[in-house]
């Protein structure tokens, strides 16, 4: 009788530990974004240009933007009822690292989904394209 109880307890304890460790990490990440300290402790590998030239990264980013972002932000990125205007100063003045984090985390409570399903390399390509909209 002890064995199943022990197993269940161990599984629940492990799951809880993982859950809370990720929650703490989340809080840190959230604070970094909201206080403009996003340049620190960020996955710089995700912001490297993965596809050689900047032009190629921008072109790939445009393709990704049309696939994933345009349905809410519009094909011209001027925003629609759901997505915000990506030409706005708040977006264009943000460092690439911040935009990268916004894409990766989403803004769940404001309706923007997380795009963590895309590899970091593709997120950085989208950021490269967004930065050409200024």
């Amino acid at each position, binding site marked *: 009788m002890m064995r199943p109880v022990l197993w269940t307890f161990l599984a629940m304890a492990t799951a809880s530990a993982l*859950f809370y460790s990720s929650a703490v*990490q989340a809080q840190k990440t959230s604070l970094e974004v909201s206080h403009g300290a996003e340049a620190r402790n960020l996955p710089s590998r995700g912001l490297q240009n993965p*596809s050689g030239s900047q032009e190629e990264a921008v072109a*790939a980013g445009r393709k*990704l933007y049309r696939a994933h972002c345009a349905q809410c932000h519009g094909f011209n990125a001027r925003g629609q009822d759901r997505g915000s205007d990506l030409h706005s100063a708040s977006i264009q003045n943000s460092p690439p690292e911040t935009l990268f984090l916004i894409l990766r985390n989403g803004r769940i409570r404001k*309706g923007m989904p997380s795009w963590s399903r895309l590899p970091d390399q*593709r997120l950085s390509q989208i950021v490269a394209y967004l930065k050409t909209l200024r």
Partner: protein
Amino acid sequence: MTFIINIGTIPPLSMAITANEIRKVVQTLLRVVAGFGLLLTLVPCHVLAGDEVYFVTYSHHMEEPGSLEIAPSFIFGVPKTSNRFLANWTEVEYGVNAWWTTEFYLDSQKTFRDSAVLTGFRWEHRFRPLANEHWITPVFYFEYEHLSDAEKTLKEVVGFDSRKDFDESNADLRPHTKDEFETKLILGSSYRGWNISENFIAEKKLNQDGPWEFGYAAGVSRSLRLSATSRECRWCRENFLAGVEFYGGLGTLDDFTLRGTSHYAAAILAWTVSDRVTLRVSPTLGLNSRSIPYMMRFGISYEIPRFNRQIRGLLR
């Protein structure tokens, strides 16, 4: 162009008329899916999508808000001691918002040298409790199932499920229905292009006595190319995802164990045909004597972005 897929004959049972009708429906569905899949490979490619690859394991990724995904999937099973079967589950998944996804399933199956039956439905909800992406991101999953014992989709394996459950005929299994509540803790991580997902499953029958049953599923997958190319292409490596998943039972609350439970390992390949369509295939092997030795899963998913706006437009 006509596709003919022979899925066997039905013996003259008392339920022959119903079974015959269902067989026609299944045949038609198969033809439509096959034709649809072929057509999609011929239409121009616009863009690509990075999407889910697993059949059984859930990742922490949610459906995009307002999007509707329709995904008929099939499993062809070759049990040792009973007839081969082809089971279908059709998923209709909707992103209510960025932290809530709901999904409805309709299940059916055709057992060769037996009959074809509708086996029930499932309705699930997934909630993402934390706002940001983390090293391990949790998602809570709740599902209500109304299924007959003839259900063969193996969407999850719990308790002491085994291939012997499939030994009886559809006529014997179909009248026995069960209402079940299922919950999962979904843990997902994204690391250097890899998706790593683990599910802990707990299931309880609502209309029968019985203990909580447990199961697990875990998967790892990765796109064959992490960065996107600038050109439009259909056969690029970036459009393919490959992975493996493992799933099986963990016994019950009274007997929490790996012994006497069935376990499976599956390789998976997904091809994102366009931004809306993904094809998936998964050869699956049973890992012990209680498992079905060989199964093949395949499916197609079609996504309708901004479905909510389209419906709103129709109603205006």
